[in-house]
């Protein structure tokens, strides 16, 4: 993409009111998660025995209430949101680099290499990957690194397909021929010429991957297979809330709403970005 087309895309994005609104909600939610806990006197693990499972109140600054152990839910929800967002970004980065590298090589090199790389993708997308993630957490224990890598490994297949499609068409253009004529190595051409030119669709798909990953992490944490106590993620908080729903519904509401609003906005923004960059997934 040229600088002009980037500017045109930015203009189209700004004209999309829903996407702009979604972006501002995302920014404020993230800012809230990063900054707000320091404005609240409570800490993540402090137990307040005089307020066990109390509802939202201004007393002792328990703005979202407390849980069964008297831990403050405002701070815990935002702490959990930080974890979830961090996992989303880290695993998103894993899946982005895997997909980008794999797709660019397959698309640019082409021929038999491309054929076998794409067969591999086909077999992998036939697998029920979520069950493999569960399986891996069972086998290698529930530690963070396994979680990030295995979640990231789920998201890269579509990314690889998209990048490959783009790389296939870039390969035939003159500037690549010029680079080859100048004697640039294949690795250099892929890194310097192919990758920068596929960034548009990659950015779009990455913004749509992050909510999927956050959802997957919360899903696993909800089942008790992801983030472990005393750490919290939105998934573990929702699990606690669902268990205490009848007696203390507010434990469910704060993390549930935060997660839902975040996911809805990320999806709306991703869709807006896709329309602005006019990047469609290959059929």
């Amino acid at each position, binding site marked *: 993409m040229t600088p002009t087309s980037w500017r045109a895309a930015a203009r189209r994005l700004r004209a999309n009111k829903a996407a702009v609104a979604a972006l501002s909600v995302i920014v404020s939610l993230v800012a809230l998660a990063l900054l707000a806990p320091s404005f609240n006197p409570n800490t993540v693990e402090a137990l307040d025995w005089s307020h066990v499972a109390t509802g939202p109140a201004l007393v002792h600054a328990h703005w979202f209430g407390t849980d069964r152990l008297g831990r403050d839910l405002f701070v815990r929800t935002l702490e959990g949101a930080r974890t979830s967002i961090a996992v989303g970004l880290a695993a998103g980065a894993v899946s982005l680099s895997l997909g980008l590298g794999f797709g660019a090589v397959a698309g640019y090199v082409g021929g038999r290499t491309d054929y076998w790389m794409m067969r591999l993708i086909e077999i992998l997308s036939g697998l029920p990957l979520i069950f493999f993630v569960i399986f891996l957490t*069972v086998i290698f224990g529930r530690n963070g690194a396994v979680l990030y890598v295995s979640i990231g490994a789920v998201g890269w297949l579509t990314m690889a397909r998209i990048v490959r499609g783009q790389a296939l068409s870039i390969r035939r253009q003159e500037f690549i021929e010029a680079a080859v004529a100048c004697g640039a190595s294949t690795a250099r051409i892929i890194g310097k010429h192919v990758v920068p030119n596929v960034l548009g669709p990659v950015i779009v798909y990455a913004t749509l991957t992050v909510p999927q990953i956050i959802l997957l992490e919360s899903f696993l944490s909800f089942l008790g297979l992801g983030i472990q106590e005393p750490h919290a993620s939105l998934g573990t908080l929702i699990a606690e809330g669902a268990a205490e729903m009848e007696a203390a519904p507010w434990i469910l509401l704060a993390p549930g709403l935060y997660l839902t609003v975040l996911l809805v906005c990320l999806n709306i923004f991703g869709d807006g970005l896709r329309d602005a960059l006019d990047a469609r997934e290959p059929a």
Partner: protein
Amino acid sequence: MLRYFIKRLAAALPTLFIIVTLSFFLTRLAPGGPFDEERSLPPQIMANLQSAYGLDQPVWVQYGRYLRALGRGDFGPSFRYKDFTVSELIGQGLPVTLELGSLALALALGIGIPLGTMSALHRNAAADALAVSLAVLGVAIPSFVLLPLLGLLFGVTLHWLPVAGWERGSIRHLVLPVAALSLPPLAYIARLTRSGMLETLSSPFIRTARAKGLPLRAIITRHALRPALVPVAGYLAPAIASIMTGSLVVESIAGLPGVGRYLVQGALNRDYTLVLGMVVLYSSVLIAMGLLVDLLHAWLDPRVRFSAPQ
């Protein structure tokens, strides 16, 4: 059609084989054996346990045995539920999960397709706005948030429906789980139907049908629906996968005794054979459903049959 089916089947069987093999060797890679977490056992008893489960044999022998047993539909013993084999647990849980899943899929199709059609016919009217916002929300709200919220509203506050639990044949216990499970695919199906229908309705053969003076109902049901549903058919396999994944949490929250709950319990207890069996089961169901969906897709869209799928 038959040739197409055989071609798809030939592609599916190796996938299943790879899944079984990969999963089997992954469990054997796991650090520590399945009996490690209990009180440390005297070596003789440990050896007896190992040989009772065939774990003293070389891995290749175990693998061969597992494959042969699997061919007979025998998933081996569960390491944690001592009195049950994995096949017995599956036999207990599968009917519940299938009932839940097929109801959810039926609801998603039964509401999603009419909603998408309505929304395409009345573009920019209230129905359209409803469908579009439902599509955005439904795709983003996870079922493990939705189900507790529904339970809070209809169970705890209004007392209309039970929050959790299971009685054989009781519809009331299934309403909330099915609703939570079907919303994400429902939303997506409505969205796909809407765009498919919009595209079909603007094509020349629909204009011809209108010019003939056919009533709208006949145009939709007889001409427009089939081509408009092609994208929906393409989405069915992911929809089934999402329902099966969703059933893990939904069964756990609602306390339904299905296979999803066994998988989660097995994963928490590190019951290798149970998890292995469940992964094999879920994969085979997914692959079988994928085949069925491919056939449906080929029936809806003849082009699929004749061009080799990428």
